[in-house]
């Protein structure tokens, strides 16, 4: 079934886009990631113009995150206070990201820079998660108690002033740490067209030391707001949000997200982390191959001024 997209100005196979959204949505619900790091490259690979792919996937992430966040909300696994601080940081970061984005654009290598940033982040985070997940699984198989968590959170986090309580996360830390984290991820959200969950989730665990149960729900909660702001930025600045494309992705995405949440309840957190690590590393590998392999087309076209 073919549908013509009004903003992307091309005809696409609607069923394929829905399935793509469904697969990404499943991962979204399962791991608490927005899935933008998969959606955006997949759409570009399909032939959607990059600007439209980035903007429309942000819209889709908003929807699938709501679906996932509500599911976690019902289990009381969303820390509203922590989420609020992260959102505040994220909005500041999104604004900064817009500035960084236009600087990179002026340098002329925006797509290469984006791919390199992707490879760098995905391989570092994927590698860390893989190491931890494997160690935990090995320990569990040997019948030992899981290795003790080193410290509740990193020393510099504990050193920050104005500490407050985050009961949902089981933390007593300065709000500056999540604020900075939110801002850093917000910058990446705008530049990379992602929700940032794949960075946020491990950062919440490893940097802030949050209670595991609250991590995924709170991450989804903050993704809703930051991607909604990103959609607004793209809609007003570059006018590249394709609502038809976003709705097609959502159709599959929201369904996939619900299934993903259910699947996540049946799996151990260590297995979840192992799964996410493998997905993240696989995407990094594919992108790296794309950067280093001799391209089929020796020329790239850039329309307009």
């Amino acid at each position, binding site marked *: 079934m073919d549908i013509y997209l009004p903003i992307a*100005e091309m005809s696409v196979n609607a069923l394929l886009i829905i399935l793509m959204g469904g697969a990404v949505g499943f991962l979204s619900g399962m791991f608490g990631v927005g899935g933008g790091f998969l959606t955006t490259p997949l759409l570009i690979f399909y032939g959607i113009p990059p600007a439209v792919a980035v903007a429309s996937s942000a819209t889709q992430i908003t929807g699938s995150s709501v679906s996932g966040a509500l599911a976690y909300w019902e289990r009381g696994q969303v820390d509203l206070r922590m989420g609020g601080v992260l959102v505040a940081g994220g909005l500041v970061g999104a604004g900064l990201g817009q500035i960084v984005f236009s600087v990179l654009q002026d340098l002329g290598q925006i797509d*290469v820079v984006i791919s*390199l940033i992707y490879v760098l982040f995905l391989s570092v985070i994927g590698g860390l998660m893989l190491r931890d997940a494997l160690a935990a699984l090995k320990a569990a198989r040997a019948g030992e108690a899981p290795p003790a968590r080193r410290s509740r959170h990193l020393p510099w986090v504990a050193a920050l002033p104005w500490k407050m309580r985050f009961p949902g996360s089981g933390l007593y830390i300065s709000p500056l740490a999540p604020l900075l984290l939110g801002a850093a991820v917000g910058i990446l959200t705008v530049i990379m067209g992602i929700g940032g969950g794949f960075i946020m989730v491990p950062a919440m665990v490893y940097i802030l030391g949050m209670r595991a149960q609250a991590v995924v729900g709170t991450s989804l909660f903050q993704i809703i707001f930051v991607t909604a702001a990103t959609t*607004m930025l793209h809609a007003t600045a570059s006018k590249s949000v394709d609502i038809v494309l976003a709705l097609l992705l959502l159709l599959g995405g929201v369904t996939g997200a619900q299934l993903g949440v259910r699947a996540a309840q049946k799996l151990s957190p260590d297995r979840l982390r192992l799964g996410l690590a493998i997905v993240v590393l696989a995407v990094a590998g594919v992108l790296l191959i794309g950067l280093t392999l001799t391209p089929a087309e020796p020329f790239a076209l850039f329309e307009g001024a």
Partner: protein
Amino acid sequence: MARIALALGLWLALAGAAPIRLITQLSQARIEINTTFRGSEMLVFGAIQYPQGTVPDAPPDIAVVVRGPSAPVTVRQKARIAGIWVNATGVRFESVPGFYAVAATRPITQIADERTTAIYEIGIRNLQLSPASGADDGISRTFETGLIAARQKAGLFTERSDGVQITRGVLYAARIALPAAVPVGDYTAEIHLVRKGRVLASTSAPFVIDKSGFERWVYVMAQENSLAYGLAAVMAALAAGALAALVTRRRW
């Protein structure tokens, strides 16, 4: 069919005027892009009007050129730097048609010499793409080849040497395929009559490709009410997410 008959009638009525002339009609003056648009086809047809109505034994050659709106395009060559492929040097072409199709009765090189086809821009190789000044001729040639190859691959630049049919030396017809990726805008169909390497008559007919209905409405909203459009997109996403959560909740 009725249109062809009409064109034929017109030809009969006008026969007898001195120079050789072309009468042209398009199957549509406007092509609308709607939700189910998967590409379209434009039928360019008409009649050749000979002096005194004498049809020669060997019919002349006809070349039909359809071109879409032009825009600047920057072509960048990919180069490997430290193992990574980056977009290196670029050449900017000032006027590149978004769509360009040639249909002719014979291969273009057999119809007329290079100079003639270049003057009338008949044939993809004869397009005047206006590379930015300062670029070396040989270099801009290489980039032009890359640009043309990319457009041909997308089906936006086509050349068919058997694309025009001539019936009884008088009626001509060409079917021009418009792929789903055609850009919107103002198009022209130029028809050239060539005999013994010389262009004896030319005519052109304009047509428009534009979005219609829902597609147009969405596009206009996104351009003119971008804030409302963005809000609507966010709301739609939130509603879809909430709805899915509600529907599936019952099953737990």
